[in-house]
């Protein structure tokens, strides 16, 4: 499949890296020659230098024979114009565009039909939604959704004195009082796919699968959640803060936004009726304290500066804020981040490249290929979602009779609207969504790969 990426910025480059790794032909367009140069040396892509909204440049990039165009320049208008122009040159082209202005975001439905846009993405909005999901269930370090939102895989940590410490996994369902499955345990940098006799220890990171409807019960019974989040402090008044404040406001969580720029504060105050807007610089040590950091249930750092976000988050953690979330745009090395008390990390560009990747996979839909791939726990473990098709082997045979590869775990089977955590008697049927958890080196690319 041929893909054109217009704009070799943060999102563009991340996409180029992941799409080439999955074997797609990628052409990049950008106005900055030096950025393209760097892209071509780092990834297996071809580059076209020029304005991506111009017919000549698009032709140069081979728009007539391409299947997908991803407009990821920093400018909404350019993205729209590019997709309109490309659509005029090639009617079969799918187009994905980044539209981040909230005012445009309202009429995306019209854009779809008029401008040939098949998908619109807004990194800031996505980041805000992700943060809101994390806030709704404090205690989860990471939360990934599968099977159209019916199955969840969450990452949680066993802190000191937790009642699960010392318990064997086989005793878990009785302790939690609902069906959950621990699909992987990370202990001291090592990934273990556990068996029933595995004993949990303090400091373990658990990857747990559960049907979405059991999530809150599980949280309660795991006794991870101490109390519900009622107020959140947002540092930085950018677009993410605006979207997040809107979402939190709807779910009845009190929002306080701290922003340095007074004009932006005015603007936010006009846009957000109920949120409390504070104009000030968080670098002044006393500001956070005087604005009531001690009484906040959550601290979310969303400024443009990664370094500042990390600093403020570390400060908040040390103050004992129950939930800290850090937005990072550039910093990638999660091994370094792990050693810092910055709470949950949200990276807008990772999020949106993930959702685009999902679209590309669905569009390409190679027989049996994964629909969704989440890499969990810094890429040590991969959870992939597959659709059971006619070509899947061993259908309607109980799982206990099928030999699978070592360390590969069938984490959930979603049939229709119900999700089950599979046991030995479960089986696959055509149309099932199956989530498989395996170490990343196992190389599970299609469902049939799991069979030994």
């Amino acid at each position, binding site marked *: 499949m041929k893909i054109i990426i217009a704009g070799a910025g943060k999102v563009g480059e991340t996409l180029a890296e992941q799409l080439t*790794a999955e074997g797609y*032909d990628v052409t990049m367009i950008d106005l900055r020659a030096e950025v393209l140069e760097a892209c071509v*040396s780092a990834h*297996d892509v071809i580059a076209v230098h020029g304005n991506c909204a111009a017919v000549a440049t698009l032709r140069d990039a081979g728009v007539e024979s391409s299947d997908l165009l991803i407009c990821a320049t920093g400018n909404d208008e350019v993205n729209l114009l590019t997709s309109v122009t490309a659509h005029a040159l090639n009617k079969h082209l799918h187009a994905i565009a980044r539209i981040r202005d909230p005012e445009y975001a309202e009429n995306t439905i019209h854009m779809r039909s008029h401008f040939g846009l098949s998908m619109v993405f807004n990194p800031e909005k996505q980041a805000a939604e992700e943060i809101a999901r994390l806030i709704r269930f404090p205690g989860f370090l990471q939360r990934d959704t599968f099977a159209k939102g019916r199955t969840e895989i969450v990452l949680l940590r066993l802190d000191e004195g937790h009642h699960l410490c010392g318990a064997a996994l086989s005793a878990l369902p009785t302790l939690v009082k609902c069906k959950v499955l621990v699909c992987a345990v990370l202990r001291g940098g090592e990934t273990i796919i556990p068996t029933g006799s595995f004993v949990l220890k303090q400091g373990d990171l658990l990857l747990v699968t559960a049907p979405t409807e059991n999530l809150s019960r599980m949280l309660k019974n795991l006794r991870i959640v101490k109390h519900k989040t009622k107020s959140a402090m947002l540092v930085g008044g950018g677009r993410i803060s605006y979207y997040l404040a809107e979402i939190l406001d709807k779910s009845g969580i009190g929002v306080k936004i701290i922003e340095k720029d007074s004009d932006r504060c005015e603007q936010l105050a006009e846009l957000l009726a109920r949120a409390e807007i504070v104009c000030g610089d968080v670098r002044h040590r006393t500001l956070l304290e005087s604005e009531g950091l001690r009484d906040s249930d959550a601290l979310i750092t969303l400024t443009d500066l990664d370094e500042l976000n990390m600093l403020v988050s570390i400060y908040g953690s040390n103050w004992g804020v129950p939930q800290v979330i850090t937005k990072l745009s550039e910093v990638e090395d999660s091994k370094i981040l792990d050693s810092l008390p910055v709470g949950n990390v949200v990276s807008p560009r990772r999020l949106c490249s993930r959702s685009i990747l999902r679209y590309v996979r669905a569009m390409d839909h190679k027989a049996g290929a994964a629909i969704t791939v989440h890499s969990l726990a810094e890429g040590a473990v991969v959870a992939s979602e597959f659709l059971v098709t006619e070509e899947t082997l061993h259908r309607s045979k109980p799982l206990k009779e099928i030999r699978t590869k070592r360390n590969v775990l069938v984490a959930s089977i979603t049939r229709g609207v119900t999700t089950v955590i599979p046991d030995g008697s479960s089986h696959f049927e055509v149309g099932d969504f199956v989530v498989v958890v395996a170490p990343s080196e196992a190389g599970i690319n299609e469902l049939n790969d799991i069979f030994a």
Partner: protein
Amino acid sequence: MNYKMMGRLFGLILCAESVFMIPSLILALTDAEMRVALGFGITMGLCALIGGVLLLLCRGAKTDFYAKEGLVCVGLSWILMCLFGALPFFIGDDIPSYVDAVFEIVSGFTTTGASICTNVEALSRATLYWRAFSHWVGGMGVLVFLMALVPVGGKSEGFTMHLLRAESPGPDVGKLVPRMRYTAMILYLVYVVLTVICFIFLVFDMPVFDAICTSFGTAGTGGFGIKNDSLTGYSPYVQTVTGIFMLLFGVNFSCYYLLLLRNVLGVLRDEELRFYFGIVGGAVLLITLNIRTLYATFGEALRHAFFQVSSIITTTGFATTDFDLWPSLSKAILLILMVVGACAGSTGGGLKCARALLLIKSFIRNIGRVQNPQKVAVIRVNKKPVDEKIVSGTMAYLCAYVLIVLVSFLLISIDNFSTVTNLSAVIACFNNIGPGLETVGPTGSYAGFSDFSKIVLTIDMLAGRLEIFPILALFSRKAWKRG
């Protein structure tokens, strides 16, 4: 430096080389040349063994690979390939001195075609085939060949760009399609198809073995003959066909890709291609007029002029006549053609038409700048502005080129041959042509030079084929320093 990744590539190259030698081994066995067969057999075993061990040791290499690694890797792998490729000549006793054997195979892989053998016809068929085949592989590049066949870098092949840049000729190397592997495949496919067509045309009027060797020599623009008098003894038909195909292999291969995409207009408008054919046309005309009196008919003069011009500008080095006997003007024209060379992205050597074009254009621009110092001017090729980095890179290339030619000229002058011999020998080796003038002319050979001069010329050939920087990078201390 990512030594593991480099080791993996070296291992692959040695294994590939061992496979390349199979036809020669079969030839030697069928001809019952046991000594030669032994030479090939031992070398193949050695290559496979060392290559296999390297591959085994360098499993799981990381793929962080940058421009520096690309340069060093290409330079080293060519040297490695040549050192092993020379072994069959040496062990098989066709060329008793190892320095001579290395000279010969470097001349083969770099598609130079300069020989130290005074009597080529006495060599075994296996050796002749290996010489010709080395041209064919060396023409397009071994690493490009590997890239087309093996997933060199596993999943992330972005780094292979550095290898393509370092191995392929031309000031601005780019891909044809997004995937490096497919780019390499397209290049090799065009190459193979053209070679086969050339072979089919030749086999009408030539024995099969001769046709194979000649088409390999033509395709790689190498020029190792299998007869002492190169192509003089063959029919005018064979000479004309070879002449035309040499010119075709001197064309930028991306032009053929554009033709495949039916973009004929784009090819016809290509400035480099026009420049190339312009020079060929002009040179043929001038030389024909200049040598008219030496030959019986105008047609014969034209044929010889065309063949020699085509052979020299594409840096092949076949000959149908001893052009050393031609008048000075013709020889001067040939010497200039030697320096200009073929198009970028072809199998030919030399400075390349694209660079010559850029240099002329920037020269004209600089004259303009002297008159109007404030003027802002952009150099355009094919109506597109050329990046100033490429222009300055071309200047630097010219500087390095002149410097190396002068130093080599100085070094081989110790042997006390005539000045014309020495200068033309250096130019012929550096530009990967083969025959020069006087002692090293089309009928002569490089056998008379001392071992020291042969080593200098060997390095020149490698530097010329890899466009200087991969070889220079090996000599820079920074390439080997940690960090």
